Structures are given as structure tokens and as C-alpha cells.
């Protein structure tokens, strides 16, 4: 792999930039791998990278139905934060956040991590108390976040209307380390680094069946032929239920669309990420100047990657109240991603009822921010055949055992 650097750019300039090699190989699938990972989104590719990097497993394939990062990895609002309430969540999200901070250097790929700060507004007394509790929990977990008052909110983000008609801003939970990153670059960076370590990233290869013999996985049937494996990792977000059905078990997961939209580009007007959970809207400004906006997820199961109209209306109505300067802004694009929601709004990482099959799903609306931590913990789980201390609490059997990691109350909607 040719390293990317300022020197390399200068050097290539002398040869009309024709010497750049492909970022990752595009191999034909082999008949057998030690580990097959289904799904080349951020989580799948990160799992592959850390399997190779941390555990020396390089006979690994990542199978992708479409193209790299074409699912939720390319459909989110790119927010990264780790100020979660429950200790297991704080541990995994903070691992992810910490890995994000120098991921560009580690992968030699600019993921444009921008630690601009994430502000979660408190617009009801209840929410203010909840954030106070979270701030204390974060302090105990060693995660820097602070409760700020309305005046500080106004100084951090002057375009906020803090005297809103329905929900005046009472304060907020401020994590200065939080921020955004370029979401496609995260998938591309992991794919390039994993491919360089010997992992086969195979696009346009849809899994159509999973072979199980005597309660143990033996391989997968795909649109490009059968592929045998010792271990199989299902990392497919919204389609986890479909893959689980192929393998013969069910999951405590339901798939719903979550949508986002972007406005026309305008001059820089906010340099932080703001989440308004009470009114269901969150926003940041991209480097191009577009306002990147996310809202609530649909209330019913669907696999349409667009979401329902009523949520567009709800989201922009909420944001026009909170940010009155948006009221004349035109929206350019709107899309949806299929998120896999669990009952306690926490992910599932670990073993499944079928021996050799591991699952990583249920990230719901909070998948992007967790990619490096999720891949790290999933790789350890797959390599060891048993969950590590980060993945342990998120096992599939926590539902039967009643060990919920309740982030649904703590995180409201914008998770």
C-alpha cells in the first residue's frame, strides 16, 4: 500500500497523478475463509481490520451486497459523542470515541474527524435533571462532559433561540470532545487498511443462505458461489433479522427507517453539533456549508430507505422553533437508513444460538459513533470465540437474563 502524505501528493504531481494505486483490492472470493463477515459497512470493515491488526487473523472475507458503506454508514448524520449514562455503554462508546481521535493517523486515511463539540439541549425540567444525572455518571466514568446553563448555550451557539415558544432552552449537556467525521471515509479507510493486511473485501456479493450442520456454521451461500468458513460474523444493521432467519434463529430487533436531510449550503453559522431531543431534531453544519439535519425514527417496521413524510415535517418544525434563521432555508436532499432497534436501545454483540455465528447488531440510531469500538470488541469476540470485557454486557442472552442496558430513557430519541 502506498502511503498517503503531503510528500506523496507532491511526488505524484510530477506524473499527472497517474501513479496512484487502487485504495483496496477487488479479489474474487476464495472457497474458504477462517472468518466470513457479512456486511461491509463501518462496523463490518472495522471488525475485519481489528481481526487482522489485533488478532493476526488475515484469512478473512467481508461480503457486501451492494457497495462499501452504502447502507447506514453513508446515511447517518456523522455525530460522534460518548456521554452515555450506563457504564457498559460509556465504556464502548468512549473506546470508539478515543479510537476515532487518531484514526486518520492509524489508517493513513483522512477521516476528517472534527472534535467541534456536541451540545444536547435540555428543554424541559425533566430533561435537565436527566442530563444532570448523565453528567454525574460521566464524571464517575471519567468522560469529560458538563452541564451548562442557557446563557452558555447561547454563547456556544448564537443562532439558537433560547426563549422558544413551546420549549425554552433551560441548559444543556456539553461534550467538548464530541464532533463529527466524514462517514464514507471511515468505511474507505478501514477497507483500505484491512485490504492491505490481507483481508478480502468482496462487493456485489449477496448472501442468500447460511449453511448450518449439526448446530454449527459451515459456510454461506452467496450470489457469487458458496463460501466455506469456520466462523461467521453477521454485521448488517437493519437486515439482521433476515440473516438470523437464514441461520435459523430470531432476534429481539425490529427494523425502522431513520431519516436525515441536508439544506442548501450557507455561510458558516454554527461550529458545534446541537441535539434537541425533546423536539426531535439535531443539526450540524458540514464543511460545504450544508445544514445536516436528523430527526426521529418511524414508529412502524419498514425497509424503505426514505422514511415517512410526517417525520420530515416534525423535524423541520422543531428546528425552525429552535433555530429561527432556518425558516427560509431550502432542503436539498432527504433519505433514510434502516436501523435495527432493540428494546433497551443498546446493541447486541456476541455469540448466537448457532455455534460459530457471531452477531453485531442493534445499534439502532447510534451506529456511526460506535464504529471503531464496535469493531474492536467484535473482533476480540470473534477471535477468542467468547466476548471480551467490553462486549460482555451486550450479549444476546441479556434479554432472557434481564440484564438490560437501558439507554432508551437516557438517550430519548437522538441516540
Amino acid at each position, binding site marked *: 500500500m502506498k502511503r498517503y502524505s503531503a510528500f506523496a501528493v507532491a511526488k505524484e504531481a510530477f506524473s499527472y497523478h497517474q501513479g496512484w494505486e487502487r485504495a483496496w483490492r477487488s479479489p474474487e472470493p476464495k472457497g474458504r475463509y477462517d472468518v466470513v463477515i457479512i456486511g461491509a459497512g463501518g462496523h463490518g470493515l472495522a471488525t475485519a481490520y481489528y481481526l487482522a491488526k489485533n488478532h493476526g487473523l488475515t484469512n478473512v472475507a467481508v461480503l457486501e451486497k451492494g457497495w462499501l458503506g452504502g447502507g447506514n454508514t453513508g446515511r447517518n448524520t456523522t455525530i460522534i459523542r460518548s456521554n452515555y449514562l450506563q457504564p457498559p455503554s460509556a465504556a464502548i462508546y468512549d473506546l470508539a470515541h478515543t479510537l476515532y481521535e487518531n484514526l486518520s493517523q492509524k489508517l493513513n486515511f483522512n477521516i476528517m474527524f472534527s472534535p467541534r463539540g456536541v451540545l444536547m439541549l435540555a428543554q424541559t425540567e425533566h430533561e435537565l435533571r436527566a442530563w444532570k444525572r448523565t453528567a454525574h455518571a460521566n464524571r464517575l466514568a471519567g468522560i469529560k462532559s458538563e452541564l451548562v446553563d442557557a446563557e452558555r448555550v447561547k454563547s456556544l451557539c448564537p443562532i439558537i433561540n433560547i426563549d422558544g415558544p413551546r420549549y425554552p432552552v433551560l441548559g444543556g449537556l456539553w461534550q467538548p470532545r464530541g464532533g463529527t467525521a466524514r462517514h464514507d471515509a471511515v468505511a474507505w479507510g478501514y477497507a483500505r487498511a484491512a485490504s492491505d493486511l490481507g483481508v478480502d473485501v468482496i462487493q456485489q456479493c449477496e448472501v442468500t443462505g447460511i449453511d448450518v450442520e449439526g448446530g454449527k456454521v459451515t459456510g454461506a451461500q452467496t450470489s457469487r458461489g458458496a463460501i466455506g468458513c469456520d466462523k461467521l460474523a453477521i454485521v448488517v444493521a437493519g437486515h439482521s*433479522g433476515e440473516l438470523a432467519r437464514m441461520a435459523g434463529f430470531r432476534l*429481539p430487533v*425490529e427494523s425502522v427507517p431513520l431519516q436525515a436531510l441536508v439544506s442548501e449550503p450557507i455561510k458558516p453559522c454554527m461550529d458545534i453539533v446541537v441535539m434537541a431531543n425533546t423536539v426531535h431534531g439535531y443539526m450540524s453544519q458540514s464543511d460545504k456549508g450544508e445544514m445536516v439535519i436528523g430527526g426521529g425514527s418511524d414508529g*412502524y*417496521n*419498514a425497509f*424503505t430507505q426514505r422514511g415517512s*413524510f410526517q417525520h420530515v415535517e416534525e423535524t423541520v418544525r422543531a428546528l425552525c422553533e429552535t433555530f429561527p434563521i432556518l425558516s427560509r432555508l431550502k432542503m436539498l436532499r432527504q433519505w433514510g437508513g434502516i436501523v435495527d432497534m432493540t428494546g433497551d436501545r443498546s446493541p447486541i454483540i456476541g455469540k448466537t444460538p448457532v455455534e460459530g455465528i457471531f452477531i453485531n447488531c442493534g445499534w439502532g440510531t447510534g451506529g456511526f459513533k460506535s464504529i471503531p469500538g464496535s469493531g474492536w470488541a467484535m473482533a476480540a469476540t470473534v477471535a477468542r470465540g467468547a466476548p471480551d470485557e467490553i462486549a460482555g454486557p451486550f450479549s444476546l442472552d441479556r*434479554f432472557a437474563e434481564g440484564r438490560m442496558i437501558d439507554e432508551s430513557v437516557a438517550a430519548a430519541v437522538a441516540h
Partner: protein
Amino acid sequence: MLLLTCPNCGAECAETELAAGGEAHLKRFGPGSEDGDFTSYLFQRKNPKGVHFERWRHAFGCGKWFHAARCTVTLEVFGTYSAQTTEPPKEIVDKVKAKRPEWEGW
């Protein structure tokens, strides 16, 4: 916009008039049942990519619950029916089969 007809009052409602209630026809397991059955009833869902039977409540109308058969991929509604049943009525199943010959059954 998803439109469903409430079989209780006959009104055609937009989704903003309704509250979604999740998967229909769950078999309930109570105290004394096997752990696996209870877990399955509480948490595990079919979550199909295709034909889905689900509960809805006409929240901003007559206030009553009903069931709907809907495709989660195309959002096509095959029909709505009374909640006073433990399985989809034959005419709804026939409608689904007519439109989705490859459907494996609920």
C-alpha cells in the same frame, strides 16, 4: 403517507391519526411458562422484510385497536381487520397470497 382504514369506525386515516402497536398475533406466555417461551414472547420479533401483520390504534379517532397486513418493503397495505382474533382472517391471507405468490405464510 401511509393510509389505513379503521375496521372499527370505517374512517380512512393517515398515519398521523394512528399509533403503531408492533407485531400482531403474539402468543402470550405468563407466569409458570418456560423461560424460552417467555423471552420469545417478550422480546423476539419476526421483523420480516415483506408481509407483516401488525397492531395499530386509531389514537386520534375512535381510539380502538385493529390489525393490518402490510408490506414493509413497498408499504402496500393488503387489508385491515378486527383485533378480536388470534390469527389473520382467511380473506386477508388470500389477498396477500394473490399479490405475493412467493410468500411463505405468517
